[in-house]
């Protein structure tokens, strides 16, 4: 069926208003739109690693989810949902859970990059390798935002964070960003998708639906800007996402049963400065004498983009 933006956007909200996430938070946009991938009448159990999303959407005695929800701890969202899915399999097998009455039940878990790339990496890797029928969604804002903007392995090179502060001896984070979508693809699971927010949200909505309804393990990596951590003007979020794609910093791709598919190739690949200069965390790169840092960043973006093109051809 052709993608119908109006239809998708008119689906009921499964993350109710009234939660305590920041205005303009990319994480919330990611969650609301991933959950639009669920078909009407189907039910989800939503999991969550500790982070901004969890403390702001399930603050006792209030919960913002319309579906069942489980938060366990920071580093185990993968394993926790694996247990929920295991229970579902067992109870169905034993005739204790009748899905016909309830519609399909889907298992979707969310984690920030801290809970996914770093502390929850082992738990995620195990759950993916065992191929549980679940979707793990990383809303990647490139730092530990909940504890106050500390670097993660998802933080881009040279970003100014509170544990890689810029100073006379430091240009921000010295290392490259870990490429998690590729690592998860190497687990040989049925579906991996990388996406972010595009003007019509088609890319995210279609990938969410595929991820949710593909049998077996699926992983979605969503660049979800954080206005506080990235230090940009909050309404600029869509422009920042667009520039992330157009500069090839954040390519849109899928890996379906081991086959790499590039979903979008910019007609004119924009220079990385265009993405960097919108964000306060890269302000120091634009000081006189630091041009070489931007060159190094550009080189890294180019190298990875070429690598991706090779995988997709």
């Amino acid at each position, binding site marked *: 069926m052709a993608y119908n933006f109006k239809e998708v956007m008119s689906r009921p909200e499964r993350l109710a208003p009234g939660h305590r996430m920041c205005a303009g938070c990319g994480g919330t946009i990611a969650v609301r739109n991933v959950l639009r991938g669920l078909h009407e009448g189907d039910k989800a159990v939503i*999991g969550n690693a500790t982070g901004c999303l969890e403390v702001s959407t399930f603050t006792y005695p209030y919960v913002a989810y319309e579906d069942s929800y489980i938060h*366990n*701890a920071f580093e185990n969202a993968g394993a926790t949902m694996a*247990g929920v899915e295991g229970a*579902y399999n*067992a109870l169905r*097998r034993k005739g204790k859970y009748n899905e016909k009455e309830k519609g399909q039940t889907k298992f979707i878990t969310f984690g920030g990059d801290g809970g996914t790339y770093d502390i929850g990496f082992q*738990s995620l890797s195990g759950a993916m390798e*065992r191929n549980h029928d679940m979707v793990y969604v990383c809303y990647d804002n490139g730092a530990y935002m909940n504890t106050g903007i500390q670097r993660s392995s998802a933080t881009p090179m040279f970003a100014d964070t509170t544990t890689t502060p810029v100073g006379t001896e430091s240009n921000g984070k010295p290392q490259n960003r870990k490429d998690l979508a590729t690592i998860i693809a190497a687990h040989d699971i049925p579906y991996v998708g990388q996406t972010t927010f595009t003007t019509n949200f088609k890319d995210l909505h279609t990938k969410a639906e595929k991820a949710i309804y593909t049998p077996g393990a699926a992983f979605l990596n969503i660049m979800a800007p954080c206005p506080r951590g990235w230090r940009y003007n909050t309404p600029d979020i869509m422009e920042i996402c667009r520039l992330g794609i157009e500069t090839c910093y954040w390519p849109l791709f899928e890996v379906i049963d081991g086959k790499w598919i590039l979903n979008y190739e910019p007609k004119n690949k924009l220079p990385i400065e265009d993405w960097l200069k919108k964000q306060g965390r890269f302000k120091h790169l634009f000081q006189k004498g630091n041009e070489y840092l931007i060159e190094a960043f550009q080189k890294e973006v180019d190298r990875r983009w070429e690598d991706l093109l090779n995988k997709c051809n």
Partner: protein
Amino acid sequence: MAKRDRLSGNEAVAEALRQINPDVMPAFPITPSTEIPQYFSKYCADGKVDTEFIPVESEHSAMSAAIGAESAGARTVSATSSAGMAYMWEELYLASANRLPLALALVNRALSGPININCDHSDSMGARDAGWIQLYAETNQEAYDNMVQAYRIAEHKDVRLPIMICQDGFITSHAVQNIMLMDDAEVKGFVGEYEPEHSLLKDTMAVGPYSVSNYYMEARRAQMEALRNAKAVVKAVGEEFGELTGRKYGWFEEYCMEDAEVAIVIIGSAAGTAKDAVDRLRKEGKKVGLIKVRMFRPFPGTEIAEALKNVKAVGLMDRTESFNDCCGPLGAEVTAALFRAKKQCEMINWVYGLGGRDVRVEDIEKVFADLYDAVENGTNDTYRYLGVRE
């Protein structure tokens, strides 16, 4: 019909689990508990159970998946030892705080280091404040019987807390003993179906909130109430089990305590050795006795103090080091219980059997000799090591 068999403690627990047929078992191997998930996954492979066995990549994930499964309404079990339990630590607290009646077959083993695969109680004793019910076993039979009783206690509506079924690594887990097994149907009937009031799958519900200071303390208090309720439930289930099998269980066992002048309080397999020492000394006319603690959490302090009210000296036997320079966990609990009961006697706390150090009948006879000496001469040396080279 009950059946006589010869099984190791691990086989006995695995056999109980086969009979229970739980819904989900996430587990990761660690010596000496490895055999439990091994035997159990073979039951799954042979269609003897229809449990979902999840071979997770770590113990942290084993307990995390167990929490997910139990929240989803599945009767859940895992097994571990030592470092495996240490790796679960954070999750142990979450299992109890979320009021999830899952079971953990714990085969007690020393915590590293030095790394050591043999028995002591440092793993479960370290987790004594994690909000779990803890039952310990002297024999393979007790390990089996405790496992059969586990869910009746944990899932009771007044309790709803996780339960740790502990046995001593290698000493009972690997040694083969005669054992009476219940009939499959009898176990099934005794344990019953698990029908949780709420679950992630049956209802729309949320588990694991963030809670600020205006709710956290009430949650903890409510959890304590549940653990307190477990006390009566453990007793009632143990009595019902006794009616069914002839093997009755309570919070602790009193051995030759009626007229005892000196006694020891001990946990686990070494109680068997200590009973031999009691028998020998009784033959010599010495009025010695023993209390074997089965339920360490919740701790039946008032009742133990009552059982000790007539002794002149008591030896408190800890199979772990607490590193506080005054007592072990069992020593601390019993001393405090006696003090609260305004009962004063000589109290000596021994640390014994660490890392699988053998405990012989002669060692326990020496303990009783030292206790008699303390009765006669008093002692300031109240924290000692048994069977150590110094």
